[in-house]
């Protein structure tokens, strides 16, 4: 099995799905001739041509609107929003159209659409190239939200998203793009949407996370193992639908829970996970549920020390886990 990076897994999944299904096409800003600003669609324009890899104007509402129309018509569009920060002009299309199409047509129409968007900070991207936007969509029924953390999961989940009959938001952490590498099978496989995965077994503290912070948690767990603290790490992989069973099972392993994400604390997805735990796993709890999230400030600061302050880190996570372990 070749070792490939997170972003290579994106490209590979797109390529394989386009080869497999002629209805799959890509549209977005600079996805064609340029191959994407992050190079996620590199080589696809050359292989599949301009009719299946569309360079669009800088109009996110149109990118998603066109994709919704095509999806309703039977195509399998994969729309790229260059940075998740720029998804805002398309929110009306996503929330009012894509999410509701199946429901309002009583199942007569559906919207098999994938919207890919790189999100997250820690890359000196400052205000408009660092945002995490998942909480904006997490409360909108009709949307699935997938946020993988590893190349293996990226390939399997992106393929599953493209084959899904309903709209899927596929958020890729841009810091993971070239940081995370692992062996990925060359053959075709999918990973079911809505299934979390235990990425590390442990007995003292349970950490629930996704995306980049999951890797920070694994790194912290590695260090803490030397101190004799055993950390159980659950990767949600899919936020919506949430794998409640896996969450409760992970909580039951230790009774102490730390939920981590980079998105802001207030209204962040950790609150929903905490609520599920409080409602359905109360008698498993051995300590107050803790959250480690981005602070409630309007955006990622440009100043490097302030960005560091904003971002969760293995050190901050280790500290929080240690406190829980000692509790």
């Amino acid at each position: 099995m070749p070792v490939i990076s997170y972003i290579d897994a994106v490209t590979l999944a797109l390529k394989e799905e386009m080869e497999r299904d002629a209805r799959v096409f890509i549209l977005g800003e600079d996805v064609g001739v340029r191959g994407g600003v992050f190079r996620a669609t590199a080589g696809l324009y050359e292989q599949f041509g301009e009719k299946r890899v569309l360079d669009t104007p800088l109009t996110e509402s149109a990118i998603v609107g066109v994709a919704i129309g095509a999806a309703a018509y039977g195509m399998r569009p994969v729309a790229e929003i260059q940075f998740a920060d720029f998804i805002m002009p398309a929110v009306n299309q996503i929330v009012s159209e894509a999410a509701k199409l199946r429901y309002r047509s009583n199942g007569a129409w559906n919207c098999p659409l994938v919207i890919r968007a790189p999100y997250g900070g820690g890359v000196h991207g400052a205000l408009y190239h660092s945002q995490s936007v998942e909480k904006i969509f997490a409360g909108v029924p009709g949307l699935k939200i997938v946020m993988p953390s590893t190349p293996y999961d990226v390939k399997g989940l992106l393929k599953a998203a493209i084959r899904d009959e309903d709209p899927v938001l596929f958020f890729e952490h841009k810091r993971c793009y070239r940081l995370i590498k692992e062996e990925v099978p060359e053959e075709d496989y999918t990973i079911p949407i809505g299934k979390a995965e235990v990425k590390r077994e442990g007995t003292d503290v349970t950490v629930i996370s996704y995306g980049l912070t999951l890797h920070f948690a694994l790194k912290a767990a590695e260090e803490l193992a030397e101190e004799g603290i055993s950390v159980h790490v659950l990767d949600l992989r899919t936020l919506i639908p949430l794998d409640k069973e896996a969450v409760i099972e992970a909580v039951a392993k230790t009774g102490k829970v730390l939920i981590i994400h980079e998105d802001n604390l207030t209204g962040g997805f950790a609150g929903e996970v905490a609520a599920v735990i409080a409602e359905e796993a109360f008698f498993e709890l051995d300590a107050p549920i803790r959250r480690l999230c981005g602070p409630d400030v309007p955006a990622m600061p440009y100043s490097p020390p302030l960005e560091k302050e904003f971002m969760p880190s293995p050190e901050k996570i280790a500290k929080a886990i240690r406190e829980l372990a000692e509790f």
Partner: protein
Amino acid sequence: MATDILMPQLGESVTEGTIAKWLKKPGDKVAKYEPICEVETDKVTAEVPSTISGTLTEILVNEGETVEVGKRIARIAEEGAVEEKTLAREEENTEEAAKEETHAEVAEDQSMKHRYSPAVLRLAQENGIDLTNIQGTGKGGRITRKDVLRVIEEGKGIQPAVTEPVEEKQALQREGNKGAPEPSRAESQIPDKPKAKPSGVVLEEGDIEVPVSGVRRTIAERMVMSKHEAPHAWLMMEADVTGLVELRNRLKEEFKQREGVSLTFVPFFIKAVVDSLKEFPYLNSVWAGDKIILKKRINISLAVATEDALFVPVIHDADEKSILGLAKEVHRLAKKTREGKLELNDLQGGTFTVNNTGAFGSIASSPIINYPQAAILSFESIVKRPVVKEDAIAIRDQINLCMSIDHRILDGLMAGKFLKRVKERLEAFGPDTQI
């Protein structure tokens, strides 16, 4: 000074870089902003400039090697590098020392011993485990889920959480002591060995074990907390209450007939306290960590003892009541306490405690503050004593007022001024005072 040169971030998604070529070698002088090496990423190739002027002392990453953004790739030295190292080491040492100190503190703190998490309670209930037998390893002595799981796994210390007849337990304990010749057998068979551990008390023949009731435990916890948290200071004053005694003697028959409750000294005590609290709001306050809260309402907690417990029901807004109103309230609360009918509301909101220790003959006491209040005042027995009055010896009714204060909130001076006002008020009562 030596400065680290780090692998720079060369693009938003770039997390690592490869050293393509070193432009300087160790020993070379470099000027600030002068390129020292070339770095290649999958997006760009760029030169890395020096951040200071000095001498390149060390190259840490060879040509062709790939390292993460932020990793040290070289060191550039100025003068004074040695000093810095020593300094850093010293800092480390103090940090370690500080760590050790906190550890020692944590070991002694038992404040969380009876805070049980849902998981701990469930496991204890499902497995019939008496949590009082378990030594907690969590913060503040808290019993963790793991502690309970360990006990379940070891199969020790398990006993019906409900109740085992006391006699049976005693017998078992005694047997254990008698079985001294074969200690190994005795040890492995006595299931409640952990229980003896915390107290360290040895049971001898004829001793009776009395299980601690919930109320007793609460009293114990609150007393310990108060003594532990609040630094107590104590002072006593003597008051001449001859006038008050005469007043009460004159009124008590008629009062009892008219109002249906006895007229005791307690309402007079409370009245004197309440009026004085208005002059000294700091006595009617609560310690809240980073601030002192001066309470607006004056709610007097009144210590009422029953045979086996102590309760402190509260007279709310005592400053709005007359002697008659206070007398009725004291009567009502004392009755409810003795009948065991106190409601939660009767026990909440106290801001200052009055203790009538004279009722059982005490002439001096050092009460424990009703935490988190600022002070507690004991009224001792009224006794006839020969005292010097206007240079002659006189027989007077004397009372001792004993007060404990939280020295974090109050100092002796203010406490003394307050107590003096209480004394003056008590002494101001005369046979003809209107109530």
